[in-house]
């Protein structure tokens, strides 16, 4: 009988680059920067690393295919390196690969590294996807962009709960204002300026009803984790251990697109969060989860995700958001590091960046933005489009806590 991942794997060390427009660094520089920090944090010889998982998404416009970019950049000693890609869940997938490799007993110490170099394409936003969607989809699928595909949710959410678009827009605005405020306290964040409600509300439209400030930063960056078993971590002299409490993945099977869906929730997140709470032994997430880093690629995504994570009741997300429930001083701070919105979103790195923030917070190392005694942190990624996506969720906490 499977027993889940809870407390089987500990984080030995983590690293994360400054995210942003890193015009003068290539993906290899970013990978080395994140890795050097993680190795120093772990305090081990690099020769202890027996295998690695590498996450990147838009491989053809940045790092290139295969896991070789990681092996070559770090000059790894001819060990096993696997590249994973699962849209915006790619970073968490790399982490999952490494964690499961340790949990299986196949390896003692494993590296997970996610990297993305998005600012080499010559235009804003994510790389265009038409050539990456497959030959059949190219023949019929609407010419969607990321903001457009998520923006649609606002119309169906508004219709489903009969909440006027103006009120949804106010809640979305608060989401972005809050994340910008959090981002000012993070020296590694891409966007570090506070913004006002008026700035957000009056920003140019990108995809109705999402304006510029409803969209996250598109950034370069890398993040990594070195993982091992709690026993080995202790034997290496680590005292405060952060362990993985849950690690879940859920994928769409086409029902949202082609069978039945209200367009006001994420089927995958609803499922993955339920499984994650079960795996972590969480029974009342609104009370038990101390903090979250969710996939706020767009403000509407964060709004709806609050309900899919079973923290806000259905239809009550906007109210909780406007009440400040998810603010830095609220009951469940969300995006305390600035989120994708302000920390930035180098896709392959994002999932590990979220784990990095939970790790820092749990160890009391988050500096100016440190929360008081967090117990459990949740990270969430949503890759793809609302109508068909990949959701990953991780829950992290202190060992034996």
């Amino acid at each position, binding site marked *: 009988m499977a027993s889940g991942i809870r407390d089987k794997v500990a984080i030995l060390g983590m690293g994360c680059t400054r995210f942003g427009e890193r015009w003068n660094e290539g993906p290899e520089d970013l990978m080395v920067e994140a890795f050097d920090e993680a190795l120093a944090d772990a305090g081990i010889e690099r020769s202890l690393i027996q295998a690695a998982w590498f996450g990147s998404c838009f491989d053809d416009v940045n790092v290139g295919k295969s896991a070789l970019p990681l092996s070559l950049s770090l000059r790894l000693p001819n060990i096993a390196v696997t590249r994973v890609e699962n849209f915006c869940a790619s970073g968490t997938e790399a982490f999952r690969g490494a964690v499961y490799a340790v949990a299986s007993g196949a390896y003692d110490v494993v590296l997970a590294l996610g990297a993305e170099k998005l600012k080499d394409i010559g235009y804003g936003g994510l790389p265009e996807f038409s*050539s990456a969607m497959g030959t059949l989809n190219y*023949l019929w699928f609407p010419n969607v962009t990321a903001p457009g595909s998520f923006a649609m949710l606002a119309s169906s959410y508004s219709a489903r709960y009969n909440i006027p678009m103006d009120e949804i827009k106010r809640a979305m605005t608060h989401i972005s204002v809050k994340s910008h405020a959090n981002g000012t306290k993070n020296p590694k964040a891409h966007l570090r300026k506070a913004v006002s409600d008026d700035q957000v509300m009056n920003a140019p439209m990108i995809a109705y009803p999402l304006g510029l400030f409803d969209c996250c930063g598109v950034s370069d960056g890398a993040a990594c984790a070195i993982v091992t078993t709690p026993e080995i971590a202790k034997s290496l002299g680590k005292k405060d251990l952060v362990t993985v409490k849950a690690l879940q993945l859920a994928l769409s099977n086409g029902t949202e697109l*082609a*069978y039945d869906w209200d367009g006001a929730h994420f089927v995958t997140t609803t499922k993955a969060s339920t499984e994650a709470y079960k795996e972590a032994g969480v029974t009342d997430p609104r009370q038990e989860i101390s903090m979250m880093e969710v996939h706020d690629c767009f403000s509407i995504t964060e709004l709806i995700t609050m309900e899919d994570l079973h923290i806000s009741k259905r239809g009550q997300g906007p109210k909780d958001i406007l009440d400040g429930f998810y603010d830095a001083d609220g009951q469940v701070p969300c995006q305390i590091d600035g989120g994708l919105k302000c920390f930035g979103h180098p896709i392959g790195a994002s999932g590990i960046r979220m784990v990095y923030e939970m790790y820092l917070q749990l160890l009391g190392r988050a500096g100016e933005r440190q929360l008081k005694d967090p117990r459990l942190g949740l990270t969430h990624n949503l890759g793809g489009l609302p109508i068909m996506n990949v959701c990953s969720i991780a829950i992290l906490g202190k060992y034996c806590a």
Partner: protein
Amino acid sequence: MIGITSYGGYIPRLRLSRMVIIQNMAWYFPVIMAVSQGEKSVANWDEDAVSMAVAAAWDCMTGQDRQRLDAVYLASTTLPFADRLNAGILAAALNAPEEGVVNADFGSCQKAGTTAAITALEALASGQKQSILVAASDQRRAKLATMQEMFIGDGAAALLMGKEDVIASYLGSHSINCDFIDHYKGCGHAYDYNWEERWVRDEGYGKIIPQAIAGFLKKTGLSIKDFARVIYPCYFSGTHKAIAKTIGADPAVVHGNLHEVCGDTGTAHSLVMLVSALEDAQPGDKLLVAGFGQGCDVLGFEATDKLAAFKGPRGIKGSLSQRVEMPNYQKFAKFRDLITADLGIRGEANPNTSLTALWRRKKMILALAGCKCRKCGTAQFPPLPVCVKPECLGKEFDEYEFADKQGSILMFTGDLLSPSVDPPAVYGMVAFDGGGRTMLDFTDCNLNQITVGMKVKMSFRRRYADQMRGFTGYFWKAVPQIEG
């Protein structure tokens, strides 16, 4: 009896007032002010001769059996493919039979529409065919500030020809074929080259049409006075009137050239006018229709008693009444690719079209055919090997057509980041009446008028034009029914 058994029409909803052209371009060529009356129809940026033909053909096939078609003819001088049967795209969009049919394109001259009609009627008369669809469509481009820009409009018409339930019986035809070149368009050239208007009017339209009509009357033993409607093209309105006098027709029975409501729709125009006339015809009315171009075709029809009970589709009148003014001349010029606007680097992506994937999925792509699970009855799109209903997992399906289904909007957006000729790119999810849902581009709509729950109809559109390889890709889009 052979003749017309159904008709359909399509005039795109966008109308460009000729005063808008004049306001923008008369500084360059003031002569265009002479024909400033009314407005011309303008195809949307995602329409072309094939997509408009599909719209007219679907209109014509409303309530008709598409499986009985044994030929599909498409007439146009602006077909997107020089070598790929354009009528085959039309037939595929109708989900018409492939086996035992003879489909064909008719082109290269403005009378190709009437020539296709005569060919169809003669094939029926020979006994070799039972049911033939004839569609004619044109979407011509003209240089800025030309008489052609003023005269031409976009549109399509379709006639179903057969032997049963004939609504207008065929009385015969007569043609003149001669190499009179009022204008021409060389292969690979974008625009027509036009000869002097006075010569075209007096020696072309003014002489050849009367000569052909005289020949037709002599051959059939009919008199021009026998006809309740006399239809011939001529975008010079003065010459159009003068021809009536030459042939001795009462001006009251001469069908107008539609200059003021849509302009001259080229190869489609004679059939567009014929459909418009059929919409008003009474049983017993005789109709004469001529097509002009390197000669002249003349055909006669007589409305039967069946016409009285014939429930007309949208047709030409319905299309003409669904109009939206296009006040922006630059937008018109961009839609016809007469000016260059930047799509940005994001707009450069240009994968080729997988012809193998298109062949495997031709019904899905061209006919919007999905499937219905034999186990649970769920209609679904796209058709995939395993039923989409959770826990059903059925693997046996019947084909299920979505092209003629209405749906309602579940969610939508207007995307300004997506590269589009007409931003924002509006798209969303649609749930079909009777089951099935999918995500589609929306067209012929204004973002500000769309709401969740609004009804949509399906429309076959150009999805992309791959300029590098010369390939045009088509798929279906949702048209929000803004007027309810």
